[in-house]
């Protein structure tokens, strides 16, 4: 039996290789994401970062030609053997690089996931919507127009709406895939503050191509480069120069990428 103090890691990945058709996108990744940490993944474009997130919530089954080898365990359970992938995905909140406000009202955007879980009671939904929007630092801006379209909000607001939607899932873990790409610096800082608070309750995987963002937020960081996981380590140590591979220090010091 697993005792309370020896909880399995949130995600445990062993010898992961991801392919599109026969072309490998990422190979030989082994790492663990621990509970209540912000785990960073940095690396330039085409490193395989997004593909990595996609197999973690088994979106490979929804993507033409995508497959993976290796073992992925979520809370100690092999995700390949899971039959109810919908339940797995509902435990994981995902925020995309470009904000995706669904063409529904702001309210319905945030109530979407609770409704999928079978929550239909108006009072309960109201409560979840308000709570999620508040935690995503958007409530004050939209509380008087919850009926207007989510897809017509500004970019920064839509991104916070996406985060509120992810939080409405009451997730175990949050994936943020380069969330600040289409967001102004002020909003980025507000979202970063939100993430630090959320860390108390959930695990976060933060994919970013902003090296300094990883440094500000993450405890440990993985560096992906051209379909390879170069190394995984304590973020502070990495930035202090304690790296196993010179490509890592070259990247974080801005010599390429």
């Amino acid at each position, binding site marked *: 039996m697993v005792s309370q103090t020896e909880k399995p890691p949130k995600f445990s990945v062993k010898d992961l290789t991801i392919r599109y058709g026969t072309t490998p996108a990422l190979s030989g990744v082994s790492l663990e994401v621990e509970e209540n940490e912000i785990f960073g993944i940095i690396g330039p474009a085409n490193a395989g970062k997004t593909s990595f997130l996609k197999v973690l919530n088994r979106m490979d089954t929804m993507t033409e030609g995508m497959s993976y080898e290796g073992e992925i365990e979520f809370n100690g359970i092999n995700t390949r053997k899971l039959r109810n992938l*919908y339940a*797995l995905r509902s435990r994981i909140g995902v925020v995309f690089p470009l904000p*995706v406000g669904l*063409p529904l009202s702001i309210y319905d955007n945030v109530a979407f*996931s609770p409704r*999928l879980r079978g929550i239909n009671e108006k009072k309960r939904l109201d409560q979840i919507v308000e709570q999620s929007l508040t935690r995503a630092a958007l409530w004050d801006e939209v509380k008087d127009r919850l009926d207007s*379209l989510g897809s017509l909000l500004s970019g920064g607001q839509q991104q916070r709406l996406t985060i509120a*939607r992810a939080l409405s899932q009451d997730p175990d873990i949050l994936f943020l895939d380069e969330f600040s790409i289409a967001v102004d610096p002020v909003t980025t800082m507000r979202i970063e503050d939100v993430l630090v608070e959320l860390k108390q309750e959930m695990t976060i995987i933060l994919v970013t191509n902003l090296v300094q963002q990883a440094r500000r937020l993450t405890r440990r960081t993985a560096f992906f480069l051209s379909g390879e996981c170069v190394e995984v380590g304590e973020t502070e140590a990495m930035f202090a120069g304690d790296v196993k591979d010179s490509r890592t220090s070259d990247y974080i010091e801005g010599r390429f990428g």
Partner: protein
Amino acid sequence: MKHSTQMFAESDLNNRNRRYEQLFKTLFLLMTLLLIIPVLVILGTLIVKGSGSLSIEFLFTEPTNGMTEGGIFPALLGTVWLVSVALLISVPLGVAAAIYLSEYAPDNWYTRIINLAIINLAGVPSIVHALFGVGAFVIFFGFGTSILAASLTLAIMTLPVVIVSTRESLQAVPHAFREACWNMGATRWQTIRKVVLPNAVSGILTGVILEVSRTTGETAPIMFTGAAFFLPYLPQGIFDQTMALSLHLFVVATQVPNVPESLPYGVALVLIGIVLLMNTLSIAFRMHLRSKKKW
């Protein structure tokens, strides 16, 4: 380096290019204007020669005196019957097939064969559809010559239109919306029902209206399967035969002696009026759809 005056001086080559530019532009414009002429001539002739016979009475009375006098009510009603039943069959079938092809089908040889079949179905001549209808629905299924057999034939003929237009409306909904829903744990069907279909429905309806306008004018597919030359009674159900506007036009224009000239023109005017009305509706719908775009 050249001075700017030299740079913009006109060479012979420039002049020739400009002349050609003018020539081709005029040529293409003329071709476009040529297109409009037949439309104007057809409409003009019909209105001039046919509007005399148009009246409320013409629309709502039965033809009399060997179809040389009276109105077109049974044919008008018959066309409504045929088109409605055809829609009831082809829309659910076509929309379902389009949803499968757009949302579920993997990109493999099997799907490609289905797509090829749809394109080919669209290319089958209507008279071949008619003969298929006779063999399949009139004889094999034993529906006889009836509204049902004729509408089934029409439905199969217009199915590709419904499938293609529905599929395009579905694909116009950005893929990112689907990904967002799937990532929240929604099934494909939940995603289709809550996000994809509501945003595609206006486009689907536009396609359906266009289908109505096509179906209304078809003659060959209903000639042998359910439409009658003349019937002294109105159809009571889908197993009856019926008259139809398109066939009625053919009959009064070529098969019946001593028809006053304005009668066939009147019938044609009603027929083209319905088609134009449907097309206008569909265009209005599309404009409405653009103005309500949600992203």
